[in-house]
């Protein structure tokens, strides 16, 4: 069960292109609806209801943005740290390949003819 959940989380790793953080439009909508001056009460109540809904929408958008950011791959470290890791990995790979090559193809046993 736990592994299934973990697999689902891993599958949910998304790219930045999949992200859709649109916060500003909602803020703009909220401000606009607040600034609107209605003359009749029914419109006002309706407007205030819409407004509270939009505030909730804003909250939801923010939380969604946070959750999606957590799923982005490769951002655990800053860019410099990540590049350092990459260099270290490359060096490690090179050293190991050289080691293997050296020991696989060395031939130090010469057969002595009597």
């Amino acid at each position: 069960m736990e592994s299934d959940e973990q697999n689902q989380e891993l599958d949910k790793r998304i790219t930045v292109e999949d992200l859709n953080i649109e916060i500003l439009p909602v803020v703009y909508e909220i401000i606009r609806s607040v600034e609107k001056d209605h003359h009749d009460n029914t419109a006002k109540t309706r407007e205030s209801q819409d407004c509270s809904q939009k505030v909730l929408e804003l909250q939801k958008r923010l939380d969604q943005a946070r959750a999606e950011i957590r799923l982005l791959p490769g951002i655990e470290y800053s860019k410099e740290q990540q590049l350092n890791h990459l260099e270290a990995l490359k060096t490690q790979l090179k050293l190991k390949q050289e080691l293997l090559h050296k020991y696989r193809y060395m031939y130090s046993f010469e057969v002595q003819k009597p």
Partner: protein
Amino acid sequence: MSTKEKLLYIIDDIELISKEIIENSIAPKHLKLSGPEYAQLTELLMAKNNELNETLKLAAEQAQIDKKMDILKAEVERQDHDINHLQKQLKEAEQILSTAIYQANQKLQSIARANKRPVSSEELIKFAHRISASNAICAPLTWQQGDPRRPYPTDIEMRLGLLGRLMSDPINGHLLQQQNNISDLHRQGHPGEIPAAQQNQFAWHPSGEIHMSVGQGSVPMDTRNHKQETEDVEVMSTDSSSSSSSDSQ
């Protein structure tokens, strides 16, 4: 600070600023912010939004680098696996070689020991022949159930031999007397002294045969059966195989 942390902080800042702006818009007139301050807040919000977009671009680049790193990590793991495999094989080879060297050393030592005291093959064959001639190692090939021959000397053979003739032959009676003296001396307990009589009685001669002193001369003792000599020599090469089969039975 990691990119993830940066992104989350920006989101928090945007939340705070937008909350400020919204509260300001619903606040009563006397608590409202002044125009420039309000403009500043809005500018700040825009700036934070831009920062968010740029950091998201950075995150996209880092995701690409992360993919490369995954490929590299897989390669490194493969190399690790190969190195482990090679190490195991080298350890095995080392063990086999060290065993082989040790055994070769043992062989060299036994060769040196053998070379120190060489023995002629003629002598070895002669002794082997003599040992197997009495039929104590392997039964004669023509032996069947009911054959009176035995791997040990039978009583008839013993009576025909020296000890049997000692009793019957009066000429050699004095030798029997000497035998009695020897046994007396032993009973008196002379530990390190070999009685002279016994020493001279049975002696090994250089040719490899037992000689017994009779008076002044010595008589070679016949310890083999001449009749069976030729057939033994012929079957000697196959004897070892037949003796092993009889041993197992």
